[in-house]
């Protein structure tokens, strides 16, 4: 049977905040845009973002984008590109207003303006008093934003391919991306989508770790597609462990809890963050708080019968504040930890949460294929959101900057695509050989017989990543991890599906996801092994100091031969003075 083909001006892979905000700009400009998502759009993981989105609106306390920029550069442990960070912090303000105009039900202040709360790593006046910068819709900000963006895309008549799984990018011999092969999950039929421009907006990869705040769908599909297309991933060693996941389970308890006045205690009831971050305390940067919790537990100060977690105390706040500002958290704590935070503290421990690294892009969302910093980019290919690395988070992302990143760069990628399509109006000829190659990825899983199951190898892989690439990393542990993940990659050949039907075959999509996760997991393990310093979320007891002389540079990883290369940090902002590296204390 002939392969079905469809043509669009733009193909967007992923329907989270980045994909939908890009789609909205494009559909409003009357471009023919297709959004492919492996789940119905409002199931995308943006929906789970809780605390809010940063923008220096100054609705509560004085603020400006320049202070926001300083905090982001410092939070990145000076690995973020300062031109991209300046751009993001300036664009934050119109981006949030546009979202509000589109209907996002933000919480409100008594004067009718958007409610803002304090979050970690925020300051006034370049490191001074705590700032109040995070725009929130109670503790359901991601839900409010994702649903609004979906609603506006319905209005704008964006064409959605719901429950289609992206298999691989299709490239021509010059390396230009021509679209993607996708799979209709319900029928098992492949479909070729040809496009003049393609935006990867496939989100994160937290499922590579066993304990994670991330959803089942966060398997790094777009990052793995980029690797298979011969593109690098940047700064993959920087993986954020959120300080407050529900202990033993991993579901997120927003930093907004601490922003509203909650704090952490150990088994003695001590407010231990005072020791590790005397000024910012519980609102220090996430990497700092996560390390402090793990250190407390390792030193025997943990709570519970196994002394394996700490407690997040909220019950000194009024029931009214909790009901109004943190209703979702109260619900989660009751369901998953069996405690009502109005009465008792919540047991918490760090949980794998967010990848700072990703597909390298410039600040226009264009994918950069090499380690040369000469502006070279792949024409027509864009990436935005958690799968991309602009790089605005560097070695550690600040809370509230993730929604910001996806919304700003999704919107901006949309605008840049509109300009690109004006000048490049024609589809390029299809490369049949590349289509065959992508089809081969599906063909491989038709092999029948005895073998490992997908879940067996997935469990082994996720445990390995957790054991060997977690909060603290030493040489031998990581080298062993790399070796193990390589062996797991070999074992993929022994995995067989037990289900070979066409209709809604989740055994097959999970096998494709496992391939993606292993490729992405290896990029994390290999990049981490080679960075011999401690910076942001990458914490090495054997190299405890940041080493700017040798390591103030981005890692690039290619999967062919696990090759690494490096490129410099862009320290020159667009219009202001650069922020030179300083010792990072909170």
């Amino acid at each position, binding site marked *: 049977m002939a392969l079905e083909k469809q043509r669009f001006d733009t193909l967007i892979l992923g329907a989270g905040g980045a994909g939908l905000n890009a789609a909205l700009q494009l559909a409003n400009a009357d471009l023919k845009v297709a959004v492919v998502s492996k789940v119905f759009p409002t199931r995308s993981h943006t929906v789970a973002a809780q605390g809010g989105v940063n923008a220096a609106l100054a609705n509560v306390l004085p603020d400006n984008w320049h202070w926001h920029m300083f905090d982001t550069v410092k939070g990145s442990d000076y690995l973020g590109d300062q031109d991209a960070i300046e751009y993001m912090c300036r664009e934050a303000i119109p981006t949030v207003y546009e979202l509000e*105009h589109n209907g996002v039900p933000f919480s409100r202040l*008594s004067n009718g303006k958007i409610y803002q709360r304090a979050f970690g790593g925020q300051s006034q006046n370049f490191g001074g008093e705590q700032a109040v910068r995070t725009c929130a819709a109670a503790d359901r900000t991601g839900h409010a934003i994702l649903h609004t963006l979906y609603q506006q895309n319905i209005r704008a008549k964006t064409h959605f391919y719901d429950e289609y799984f992206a298999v691989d990018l299709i490239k021509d011999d010059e390396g230009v991306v021509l679209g993607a092969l996708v799979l209709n999950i319900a029928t098992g039929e492949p479909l070729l989508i040809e496009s003049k421009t393609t935006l990867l907006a496939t989100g994160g990869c937290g499922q590579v770790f066993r304990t994670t705040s991330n*959803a089942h769908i966060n398997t790094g599909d777009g990052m793995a597609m980029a690797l298979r297309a011969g593109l690098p991933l940047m700064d993959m060693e920087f993986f954020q462990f959120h300080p407050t996941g529900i202990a033993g389970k991993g579901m997120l308890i927003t930093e907004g809890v601490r922003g509203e006045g909650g704090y952490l205690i150990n088994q003695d009831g001590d407010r231990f963050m005072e020791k590790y971050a005397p000024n910012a305390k519980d609102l220090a940067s996430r990497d700092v708080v996560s390390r402090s919790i793990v250190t407390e537990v390792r030193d025997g100060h943990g709570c519970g019968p196994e002394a394996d977690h700490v407690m997040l105390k909220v019950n000194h706040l009024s029931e009214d504040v909790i009901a109004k500002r943190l209703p979702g958290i109260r619900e989660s704590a009751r369901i998953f930890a069996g405690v009502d935070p109005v009465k008792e503290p919540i047991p918490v421990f760090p949980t794998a949460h967010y990848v700072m690294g990703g597909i390298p892009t410039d600040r226009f969302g264009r994918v950069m294929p090499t380690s040369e910093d000469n502006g070279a980019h792949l024409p027509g290919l864009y990436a935005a959101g958690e799968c991309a690395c602009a790089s605005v988070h560097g070695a550690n992302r600040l809370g509230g900057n993730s929604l910001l990143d996806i919304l700003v760069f999704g919107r901006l990628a949309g605008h840049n695509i509109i300009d690109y399509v004006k000048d490049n109006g024609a589809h390029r000829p299809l490369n049949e050989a590349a289509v065959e190659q992508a089809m081969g990825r599906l063909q491989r899983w038709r092999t029948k017989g005895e073998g490992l199951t997908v879940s067996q190898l997935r469990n082994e892989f996720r445990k390995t990543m957790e054991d060997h690439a977690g909060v603290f990393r030493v040489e031998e542990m990581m080298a062993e991890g790399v070796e193990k993940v390589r062996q797991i990659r070999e074992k993929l050949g022994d995995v067989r599906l037990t289900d070979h039907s066409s209709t809604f075959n989740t055994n097959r999509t999970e096998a494709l996801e496992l391939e993606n996760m292993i490729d992405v997991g290896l990029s994390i393990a290999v990049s981490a092994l080679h960075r011999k310093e401690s910076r942001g979320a990458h914490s090495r007891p054997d190299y405890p100091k940041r080493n700017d002389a040798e390591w103030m540079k981005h890692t690039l990883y290619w999967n062919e031969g696990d090759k690494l290369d490096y490129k410099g940090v862009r320290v020159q902002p667009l219009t202001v003075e650069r922020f030179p590296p300083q010792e990072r204390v909170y």
Partner: protein
Amino acid sequence: MKFSVYRYNPELDNDPYMQDFEIEPRQGMMLRDALLVIREQDESFTFRHSCGEGVCGSDGVNVNGSNKLACITPLTELKEPIVVRPFPGRPVIRDLVVDMSRFYAQYKQVDPWLIRKEPMPEREILQLPEERDRLDGLYECIMCGCCSTSCPSFWWNPDKFLGPQALLSACRFLADSRDQAAEERLDKLEGPYKLFRCHTIMNCVEACPKELNPTKAIGHIKAIMLKDAI
């Protein structure tokens, strides 16, 4: 723990059937965790799920006769044998996976987006906290479908009655002080079926995993219509 699970693969089975499974419960286990354990026993067993914390709305199923979100339903709340079926009244694609396209189409029919006729201000549109409070209980819907697929009016007239989810969404925009299309929204809901087919059976309220109240929202829309008519 004993489970009886609905199975149907249109490529292999002439008719759906119930299959028994037994699993070892762990402390704090949710229904979704149990379904995942069953899936490890039989990788062909198919259901939708994603976030695992009750916000994405993927894993609505019918368990012991009620529609629930599997990921936030503790096993301790369920009587054995635990009978798990797909949502009632929707065509089954496979096992617990149903075709929700009608449900999504009904949502789209209420123009579920903010409509503003005045030019936008430079900054945010102002909204007082008490105005914003009117959206509470309406905007939190996760579109899981537990309500609409438990509604007898929806089962009998899915082509004419919009169902509790879509009507809750309609109410969300009618309640928004920023929205400027109330009249058009109400006009679209006129007639004997779209809105008025709700007979206040209140299965939707029972089923909603987010503790929202679509029946109340529907009553609220009816009240506005009545007031406008006078």
